[in-house]
């Protein structure tokens, strides 16, 4: 059966622009895989992968640049564009910004040379295989699209292939341009996290980044198959999310609705009662709320909505933990270099970056970025320019969806009064303030270590 793709009008625009530019390009396709039965996917917009030249140019001195660019141009020009690792990194960056319901569904290439064209399939398969292996939180294992654009013929062909069966060939697909994102329903929820992760002796010998990655994996297991309330009502999985009365079918079916979602986690009666004990060096505690957002097509079922919002919950925590992990990696290596000692993460509190929403200029959806407390609009704008290639106005960035916790510091003493871990950091701050502990502002990133001892673990 031929796969069909529904693409936003802005995609057509973007393709025209690419044709107009006439350069060699590679980039990612952002959209949504429809359900299996329908064999239909949705394309929302394209994101051009920045070329490596620009990156290299920033980090090297001028002389080196000249040398290098010469070398590159002479020897590696052909395949430099299709650098799997480079595109993979871009994919990670893009995936972090996408709301639930959307993911990277393919790759586009433009104006490739002969040798590049023959390498496309391998790169395509290799890239997605890497991604699947890395994390299925980023995207789902489905057939992915390849758009091949040629400025000469002024045409774009759409093909699809399942990266998990590379022996098969690309299949041609049908395309239809139509607005859809603006009509898709929007699901919102605020997800509360309070997670304890004892770090075993074995794990505590590994890098902090590895520890946080393991911590994240374990946390994911606590967010599986919740009971979902849609607009405060209990619904069955196979029901259609938004019922449309028959007489107004045509009109109402095309309107976006904001849907309030609640997620309830069952606390089942334990089937085994053995106590599990163990030595652990230290424990991670993750506490706070995350704002979650996802989109679903109009005729989605409750089950699809559940999957979409769960996907966003996982993805937002994944993005935050990864960003914090990257910071740890940097400071760990810095510290090692400076002090020749191993980095000790004990007795610290670290902020995860908070989420900000950005209105996509062409497509009616909200993208996200994550900022640490010392970052602001210009940082976001710069990142978006790099990752997506478009400009974002400051008004389009919503910084107030989430707020950083107020963190208190102890000046001299290490042992603070016992503060129940149940309190949010805000409440804890108030409590401490009331009993006369000093207040120092939270300091930023990398050095995001503020010495503070939570007196309790639960």
């Amino acid at each position, binding site marked *: 059966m031929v796969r069909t793709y529904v693409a936003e009008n802005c995609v057509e625009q973007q393709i025209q622009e690419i044709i107009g530019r006439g350069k060699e390009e590679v980039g990612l396709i952002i959209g949504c895989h429809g359900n299996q039965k329908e064999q239909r996917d949705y394309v929302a917009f394209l994101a051009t992968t920045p070329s490596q030249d620009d990156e290299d140019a920033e980090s090297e001195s001028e002389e080196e640049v000249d040398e290098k660019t010469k070398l590159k141009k002479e020897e590696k020009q052909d395949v430099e564009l299709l650098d799997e690792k480079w595109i993979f990194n871009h994919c990670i960056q893009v995936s972090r910004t996408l709301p639930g319901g959307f993911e990277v569904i393919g790759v586009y290439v433009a104006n490739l040379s002969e040798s590049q064209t023959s390498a496309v399939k391998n790169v395509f398969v290799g890239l997605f295989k890497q991604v699947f292996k890395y994390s299925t939180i980023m995207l789902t294992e489905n057939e992915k699209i390849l758009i091949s654009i040629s400025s000469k013929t002024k045409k774009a062909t759409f093909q699809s292939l399942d990266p998990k069966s590379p022996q098969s060939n690309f299949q041609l697909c049908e395309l239809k341009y139509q607005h859809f994102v603006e009509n898709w329903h929007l699901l919102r929820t605020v997800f509360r996290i309070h997670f304890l992760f004892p770090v075993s002796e074995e794990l505590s010998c590994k890098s902090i980044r590895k520890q946080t990655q393991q911590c994240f994996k374990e946390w994911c297991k606590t967010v599986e198959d919740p009971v979902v309330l849609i607009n405060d*009502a*209990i619904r069955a999985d196979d029901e259609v999310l938004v019922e449309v009365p028959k007489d107004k079918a045509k009109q109402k079916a095309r309107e976006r609705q904001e849907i309030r979602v609640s997620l*309830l986690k069952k606390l089942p009666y334990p089937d*085994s009662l053995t106590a599990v004990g163990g030595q652990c060096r230290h424990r991670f505690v993750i506490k706070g709320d995350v704002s979650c957002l996802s989109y679903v097509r109009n005729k989605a079922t409750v089950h699809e909505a559940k999957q979409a919002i769960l996907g966003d919950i996982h993805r937002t925590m994944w993005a935050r933990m990864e960003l914090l992990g990257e910071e740890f990696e940097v400071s760990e290596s810095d510290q090692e270099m400076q002090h020749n000692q191993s980095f000790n*993460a004990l007795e610290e509190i670290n902020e995860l970056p908070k989420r900000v929403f950005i209105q996509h200029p062409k497509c009616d959806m909200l993208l996200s970025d994550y900022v640490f407390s010392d970052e602001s609009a210009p940082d976001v704008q710069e990142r978006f320019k790099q990752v997506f290639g478009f400009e974002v106005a400051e008004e389009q960035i919503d910084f107030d969806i*989430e707020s*950083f916790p107020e963190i208190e510091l102890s000046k001299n003493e290490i042992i603070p009064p016992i503060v129940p871990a149940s309190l949010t950091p805000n409440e804890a701050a108030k409590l401490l303030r009331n009993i006369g502990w000093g207040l120092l502002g939270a300091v930023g990133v990398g050095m995001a270590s503020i010495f503070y001892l939570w007196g309790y673990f639960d």
Partner: protein
Amino acid sequence: MEAKPYRITQIQESTILLRLRCGFEVLFASNNGECRIEEGFERFVAAKLRHSPLAFKLQSEPVLFLDGHVVVNSLVNNTLFRSENGKEPRTVGDVLPKVAKKTGKTKSSSSMRVFDVETMEVQGQPSTESVTSPTLSSEGDLSVATLVKVPVDAIVALEKTDEASSVHAKLLQGLMDHMELIRFCMIKFKQAGKVVAVEPFHFRPLNNEYIVTTYYPTGMDETELETFRRSLHVCLELPTNRPLFRRGNMYRFNDTETRGGYLLNVHEGHSTVSPIGGQLALVQGLYSYHHYMQDRFDDNGWGCAYRSLQTVCSWFNLQGYTSKPIPNHRDIQQILVDVGDKQPKFVGSKQWIGSMEVSYVLNNYLGVESKIMFVSSGAELKEKARELAVHFENQGTPIMIGGGVLAHTILGVDFNSNTGDVRFLILDPHYTGAEDLEVILKKGWCGWKKTDFWDPMAYYNLCMPQRPSVI
């Protein structure tokens, strides 16, 4: 709150019970080998129960109790509930599903309605006043941390007319109350400084109008718990000569008519009105019906006494005197060889046994003494009616009777002391069919028999098991 190691829930016929079964993971730290239980609980309760919103859902219905309001599936084509005028349900009676009338017999204990409730943590809410982004903190240097899965089985009694919006608060209170109870029990049963896992048990002693709930350490032997049980008997002013709080005595909420596939108390399908104007004296408590061909074992023609013995064993098991399984034919034969009553080749044979052998097995396997009654003629049994009635009133155990070529179980006697008329309630182990209650009752495999049931030409031995005086 008084520090009592148990809780009492009063019940009446109109009571609606919500039964909350859930589990929590609680972490306890140990210092110098001493587990800090109090601390572990305090922190847990503060974190999980006071600050984290909990929701309660009826297990098989789309009814959810949230803080402040009730959510009932509100789809247009939902046929389960229609709240009047589309308003939010007001009372508990509005919210809970109506129970369809059961056809056939209903046990008196099932007139009280019990609903299972699931506990849930509200992880995601549509919006909150402020969204504080998460922090990752590290707590260091714990010595030994023990993670214990704490099971909770709390029951909350409601009336139909109670406000639906108050249910959440009541359930939460019940949960908190149980955490107190669990903490008390964990501290009480702490062993060598280590925390023990505890399990909930509900009891309804002597079928009174209340349910007692307590927690016992998992795996602790019944003998070790005897002192604790005695204190329960004393506090609640209950007789101390019969077990009421052993694990085997636990109250079963579901109106199960079977246990392990066997039918329970099949005699209850019969009327309790005496057609001869007499007084009924019946077996007390629960037993399961054992008969030919059960357990895919063909003992047709020879196993009747064995089956009757199994029924008697089931009684001691169900009344909590023992947790030993019901012995099969081979087990029974082996026991008789072990006590020296039979030769080794007895095992695996199809030899009959009589009431003496039954008493030996009860003694050896369960530690139960029996009185043996001998009648030289089946016709004499009529005269023993009073004695049998006294047995059922005092002991209440099923009687195994063997004579002629048959063995039966007597479950009760109907005696008119004026006219001298007698009927016997007989459970017949010769039944070879399936566990079909209707057939069993209709065809008289369990039924009231007149004195002509007994063969006047045969002599009979009755084995009357005596309740051990234990708790």
